[in-house]
C-alpha cells in the first residue's frame, strides 16, 4: 500500500489536542445555539403568561368563580364557563377513554396485519391531523341535525371525544407495544386466554401510558374553541345545567347533558371581543385559569406516570 495518505505520519499529541479543541468549540457553539432556540419558545411563553397574570390576577376573587357573566365587567364571572368546561370534559373522557382503549387493544392484539388494518392505521394518523373546525362541522351535521342531540353538552363532549380519540388510540398502542413480548409469552405459557392476558397483564401494565395519553388528550380538548363554536355553544349564558333530581319538575339523572352551555375558551373569546378594556381584564383572568387547568392536568399526568411506573419493571 503506497497511497500518499499512508505515507503521512499520524498526528502527534500536540496536534491531537488541537483537533480535540476544535471539536469542543463546535460542541459549545451547538450547545449555545440549542439553548437560544429553546429560549425563544420558553421566553415567549413566560412573557405571555406574565402579561396575562399581571392584568388578570387582580380579578381572581372568589366571586369571579361563582358569578355568571354580566354586562358589567366588574360583576362578571366564569361560573357557567368553568362548570361547562368540566362537564364537557367529563363526557369527553367517558366516551374517548373506553372507545380509544378498546380500539387500540383491538389493533394491537387482535387485528391481523393486512391491508385493511394498514388502511385503518393510516387513517388514525390522518385523523390526528384534521383541523378541529372540521370536527365541528361533522358534529353539527351528525350530532346536532341528524341525531337531534341539540347544541348541548353531550354534543360538545362527543365532538371533543372524536377529536382526541386518535391521541388516546396512539398513546395506548405505544403503551401496549412497550410491554416486552416475553412477558406476554410468560402469561400465555401459563394457559391464559387472550382476554386474560389483556385484562390481567397488558391493561394494568400499560395504565401509566394510557392515563398520560388520556390527560394529554383532555388538556388539548379543554382549550378547543373552533368546534365548540361551530356546534353552537352560547357565548352568554347565565344559568347552570340542571343538577340531577333538582328543580321543578325534578331533572333526570342525565338532563344536564342536554343543557346548553358555554366553555372557558368561548367565554375568553367573548370578553376579548368587547371594546371595554375592563372585559379584557376578565379575559386575562379567565385565560389564567384555563392555562392553570391545562398545566394542572399535565402535572397530574406526569405525577401519575411517575407513581405507577415505579411498580412496573421488566
Amino acid at each position, binding site marked *: 500500500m503506497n497511497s500518499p495518505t499512508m505515507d503521512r505520519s499520524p498526528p502527534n499529541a500536540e496536534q491531537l489536542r488541537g483537533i480535540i479543541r476544535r471539536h469542543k468549540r463546535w460542541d459549545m457553539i451547538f450547545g449555545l445555539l440549542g439553548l437560544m432556540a429553546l429560549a425563544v419558545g420558553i421566553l415567549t411563553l413566560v412573557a405571555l403568561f406574565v402579561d396575562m397574570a399581571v392584568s388578570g390576577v387582580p380579578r381572581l376573587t372568589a366571586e369571579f368563580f361563582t358569578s355568571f357573566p354580566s354586562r358589567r365587567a366588574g360583576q362578571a364571572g366564569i361560573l357557567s364557563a368553568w362548570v361547562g368546561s368540566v362537564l364537557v370534559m367529563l363526557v369527553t373522557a367517558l366516551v374517548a377513554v373506553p372507545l380509544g382503549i378498546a380500539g387500540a387493544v383491538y389493533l394491537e392484539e387482535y387485528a391481523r396485519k393486512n391491508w385493511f388494518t394498514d388502511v385503518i392505521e393510516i387513517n388514525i394518523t390522518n385523523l390526528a391531523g384534521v383541523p378541529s373546525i372540521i370536527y365541528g362541522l361533522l358534529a353539527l351535521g351528525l350530532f346536532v341535525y341528524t341525531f337531534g342531540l341539540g347544541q348541548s353538552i353531550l354534543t360538545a363532549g362527543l365532538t371533543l371525544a372524536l377529536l382526541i380519540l386518535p391521541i388516546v388510540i396512539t398513546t395506548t398502542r405505544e403503551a401496549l407495544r412497550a410491554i416486552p413480548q416475553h412477558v406476554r409469552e*410468560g*402469561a*400465555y405459557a*401459563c*394457559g391464559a386466554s387472550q382476554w386474560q392476558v389483556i385484562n390481567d397483564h397488558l391493561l394494568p401494565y400499560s395504565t401509566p401510558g394510557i392515563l398520560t395519553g388520556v390527560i394529554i388528550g383532555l388538556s388539548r380538548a379543554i382549550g378547543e374553541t373552533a368546534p365548540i363554536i361551530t356546534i353552537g355553544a352560547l357565548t352568554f349564558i347565565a344559568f347552570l345545567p340542571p343538577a340531577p333530581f333538582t328543580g321543578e319538575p325534578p331533572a333526570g339523572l342525565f338532563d344536564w347533558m342536554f343543557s346548553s352551555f358555554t366553555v372557558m375558551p368561548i367565554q375568553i373569546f367573548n370578553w376579548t371581543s368587547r371594546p371595554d378594556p375592563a372585559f379584557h381584564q376578565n379575559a386575562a383572568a379567565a385565560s389564567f385559569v384555563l392555562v392553570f387547568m391545562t398545566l394542572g392536568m399535565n402535572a397530574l399526568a406526569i405525577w401519575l406516570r411517575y407513581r405507577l411506573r415505579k411498580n412496573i*419493571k*421488566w
Partner: protein
Amino acid sequence: MPSTITLPAKPPALKAESKNLDFYYGEFKALKGISMPVFEHKVTALIGPSGCGKSTYLRCFNRMHDLYPGHKYDGSIHLHPDQVDVLDRHVDPIEVRMRISMVFQKPNPFPKSIYENVAYGLRVRGEKSRSYIDDKVEAALKGAALWNEAKDRLDDLAVAMSGGQQQRLCIARALATDPEIILFDEPTSALDPIATGSIEELIGEIKHKVTVLIVTHNMQQAARVSDYTAYMYLGELIEFGETKEIFMKPKRKETEDYITGRFG
C-alpha cells in the same frame, strides 16, 4: 439421512412422542421430520448449534408458535397415556399449555407480587379458594428452592429479586399447576455461574415430579442435568440416545464433531 435413535434395553415409560414433525415459519421449513420419544420423569436435553431448531422444536410442545402468524405444523406430538396430539388443530393450545408449562430464556416474572406470580397459573384456571392457592404457592416455592428466601416477602414485587431468584420464581410459577411436562428454553443463559448451578440442581430434583425437556447451548450443562440427549442440526434430529452414550460414544460423526468442539 434418518435420525439415529438408540434406546436402552429397557426404556422407561413414554410421556410424549413426536412423529415426523415438520414446522414452517411461512415458507421456511425450520424442522424436518423430527421423531423422538420423551421419557417420563427423565430430563431430555436438546442440543445443537444456533439456528438448529432446538428452541423451535421445544416451542411446538406448548404451541407457542400459535401466537405468531405464518406458522404451520405437520406431524404429531402425542402425550401419554391419553394419546392427545398437542399439534392437532382441534386441540386448544390453552389446554396444551395448562398441561405443559414453560420456563424461558430470560427470567420473565410479571410485574406483580411474588405470590401473584406463582398463583397466576391457578388464577387462569378459575381457582378461587384462598387456602388452596396459599398451599399451592408454598409448595411450588418450596419445589423451586425459593421458599426460605421468599416466605417473608410474598407481597413484594417479583422484579425486585435477583436474576437467579427470578428464574427460580418462574420455575415455581411453572410448577404451581402440577404440569405433566416443563419446557426449559435455555433457562440459565442469562444467569451467573452460581445461579446456574442452583437451577441445574433444581432441575435434577423436579424431574421426580415432572418430565423435563430442556434446550441448552451449553454441552456441559446437558451432560450434567440430562438423562437423554437429542442432537439437532439444521432442523433435523441427528442423534438421540442416553446422555452418557451420546457424550461418551456417539454413533454419528456429526454428533461427535459437535460434542468434541470441532464444530459449532
